[in-house]
């Protein structure tokens, strides 16, 4: 087992507190990140002991976001929200766990969907033909 010791540096700036750790070249080579790049930090708890952190190369597949399916709104067979892969993870700004980022993006997409549907309903309710179309649409949806 190879072991290195480095100092975790604490920096206090106008935007808040952040920490920087110097990484040995051998570790970067082990991660296959000689030129730098994305990596994941996983906090793992031990049943009776201190937590430890696993440093792994970044893997793209588990990241996804739910997005409002605006272009397929007229199609009743399509879901209102669609799942799309997140190309690049958010590594800047306030520190958030990956799950928390995904949840916040989902809330933002849901708010957008709600705003869009409300605006569409307001437009449709303003005319007689629109109201009739709404009734048909609701019946088709099973309401």
């Amino acid at each position, binding site marked *: 087992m190879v072991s290195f*010791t480095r100092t975790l540096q604490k920096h206090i700036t106008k935007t808040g507190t952040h920490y920087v750790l110097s990484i040995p070249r051998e*570790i970067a080579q082990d991660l296959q990140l000689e030129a730098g*790049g*994305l990596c994941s930090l996983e906090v793992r708890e031990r049943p009776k002991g201190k937590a430890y952190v696993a440093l*792994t190369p970044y893997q793209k597949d588990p990241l996804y976001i739910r997005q409002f399916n605006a272009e397929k709104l007229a199609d009743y067979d399509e879901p209102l929200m669609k799942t799309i892969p997140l190309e690049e993870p958010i590594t800047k700004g306030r520190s958030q766990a990956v799950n928390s980022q995904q949840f916040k993006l989902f809330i933002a997409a849901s708010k957008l969907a709600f705003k869009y549907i409300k605006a569409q309903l307001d437009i449709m309710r303003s005319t007689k033909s629109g109201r009739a179309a709404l009734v048909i649409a609701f019946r088709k949806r099973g309401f």
Partner: protein
Amino acid sequence: MVRFVRTLQHRVTPQGRDFYALSIPPQVAEALGLQDGGQVTIEVKPIRKGVSEIVLKAGEA
């Protein structure tokens, strides 16, 4: 398990040496009990043949 994604920064010093730095989220520093900074042990642990895991632990004071 909580997961964060960060960029491993690579710089070359004026002396021509490679330098790598990783931004650590405050939640991770807290989990290690290093809110004020301190020594971190970086270990390369072999899991099975040809596969290893990199583990960060709070160093001995």
